[in-house]
């Protein structure tokens, strides 16, 4: 009787202990989802350092889980893994909030840059229309070609904005604005030197 009691107790204890040695699946899934949400919110682009930290925590959590999984069932302890999962989830959620904010700031900056580029290109096109034929027809035609190309490039910026590539859009918009301003300065210099041009007699 006593022996039976001891045996039953021992088996029961083993069952209990092995039940405790299970990885915290819900917490792990929650942590992974939080990191995925952060990634999808653009964290890797807009808050890269913080996102890298979260990725590091996730990897540390997975490593800890793998280590415990490799142990004998009775010796497993997922307490650390649970702590890491909780920390990962908390950090990832904070990173997501920061990323969304940064992305909105980047979107605003990109939109502003796009508008500034549009204004510069419009100004350049106005000047092109007033540019005199002058002595150097090739230079005038080159300027016209450049202005038209810049106008077409604004479409690329819009496409980047539509794809939420705000950093790329801002960089391109600034490049367009810089070029358009250079074209405007070139025409203004020519206007100052040459004055109004004459109409050309015949088309060739």
């Amino acid at each position, binding site marked *: 009787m006593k022996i039976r009691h001891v045996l039953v107790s021992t088996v029961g204890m083993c069952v209990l202990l092995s039940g405790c040695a299970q990885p915290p699946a819900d917490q792990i899934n929650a942590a992974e989802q939080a990191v995925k949400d952060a990634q999808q919110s653009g964290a*890797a682009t807009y808050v*890269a*350092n913080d996102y*890298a*930290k979260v*990725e*590091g*925590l996730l*990897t*540390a959590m*997975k*490593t*800890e889980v793998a280590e415990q999984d490799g142990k004998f069932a009775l010796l497993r302890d997922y307490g*650390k893994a649970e702590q*890491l999962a909780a920390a990962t989830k908390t950090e990832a959620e904070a990173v997501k909030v920061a990323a969304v904010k940064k992305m909105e700031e980047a979107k605003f900056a990109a939109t502003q840059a796009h508008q500034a580029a549009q204004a510069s290109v419009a100004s350049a096109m106005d000047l092109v229309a007033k540019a005199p034929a002058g*002595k*150097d*027809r*090739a*230079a005038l*035609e*080159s300027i016209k*070609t*450049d202005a*038209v*190309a*810049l106008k*077409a*490039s604004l479409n690329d910026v819009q496409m980047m904005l539509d794809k939420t590539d705000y950093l*790329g859009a801002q*960089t*391109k918009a*600034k*490049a*367009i604005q*810089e*070029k358009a301003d250079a074209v405007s300065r070139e025409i203004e210099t020519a206007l100052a030197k040459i004055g109004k041009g*004459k109409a*050309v*007699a*015949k*088309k*060739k």
Partner: protein
Amino acid sequence: MFQKNPSVEFSLWCAGALALCGSLTACVETVPPDMVEAIETLDRDLLQLRAAEVAPGEYASFAHQWVRLRTRVEAEEDTIRWPWESNDLKEALRQLQAEGARTVAHLAEQQEAERRAAVRQLTEVEERVQTLGVQVGAIDSRLILAEKPVETDLLLKQARAFYEQGRYEQSLHASDRASRHLAAQLALLQHELGRYASPDRIAQWQRSARETIEWSKTHRTTAIIISKAERSLTLYRTGQKVISYSVRLGFNGIKEKRYQGDGATPEGRYHVAAKRGRGQTQYYRALLLDYPNQEDRRRFLTDRKKGKIPAFRDIGGQIEIHGVDNELMAQTLGCVMLENQHMAVLFDRVDSGTPVTIVGALHADNSVARALANLPNHRDEI
């Protein structure tokens, strides 16, 4: 029997207390704070270097060990040990610090290599674009490239901006795209102007010129040869060279003429169709040519059928050899322009019907062929 001596007892007691104090001051903290600070600095450095992204395995190992050790650090922060006691936590922190420092050094080297690659490629493409600009400017062929130089320039500006922001991968990507745009420009120039470097085409032009000169010899009269690459007009009489003048061409003169308004000066065999003297032209004096000829019309119709010429474009006309209006323009709309004193001489020496042969070049070593040879075709050729 020994008797208790209070002063000896007191001395012994003081010595013992002193010995204890001495031992206690020799005790050391389990967790040296400077070591913890150093490891935290390494962690920040690894994040800065984006270690989780570029070296995930190494960073995972570091992060995992640091998380574990940090828990022990927090637990044993206020403990002290005897100097002779072993300190496995300190040893583990030392090893982690060494491992972290190695990873930081490795990643910093990697990032520096990426930076060098980005600046090298960016500088190389910028130099190639500059070389192209010089060669294109030398032969007035900028318009052949249409909008492509702007697209390339915008990509280079983006590449430079990404580089200055430390985004080396994006800089490399942008400068790589710029390089491909540049290659497209070079291909376009070769397509449009390659005939200036073609021995067969040069020979064909030389043949046309020879036949025109021979005609002037046979018919004992004048003929004109115009070379676009050399920008020269030569008057022949009875097969002998009389005089040569520099000329200016259309604003896209070096190109083969395709349609009205393209700014190109045509190539082919023409004749003076009419002479326009003072008061009959705004350009001092002018010799109207019979452009387009039959060959021009045939080519125009073929190109239009192939879709190379927009349907709304006409073949053009009114190509002249003329003088200057009020001021000497840098280019014409497609005509051949001389200074008025030269136009005066030419006008008096030719008649209606005088053959005028316009060729691309008369020599293999011409300005356009030289410019094409100097183009930055390949990276290794810089």
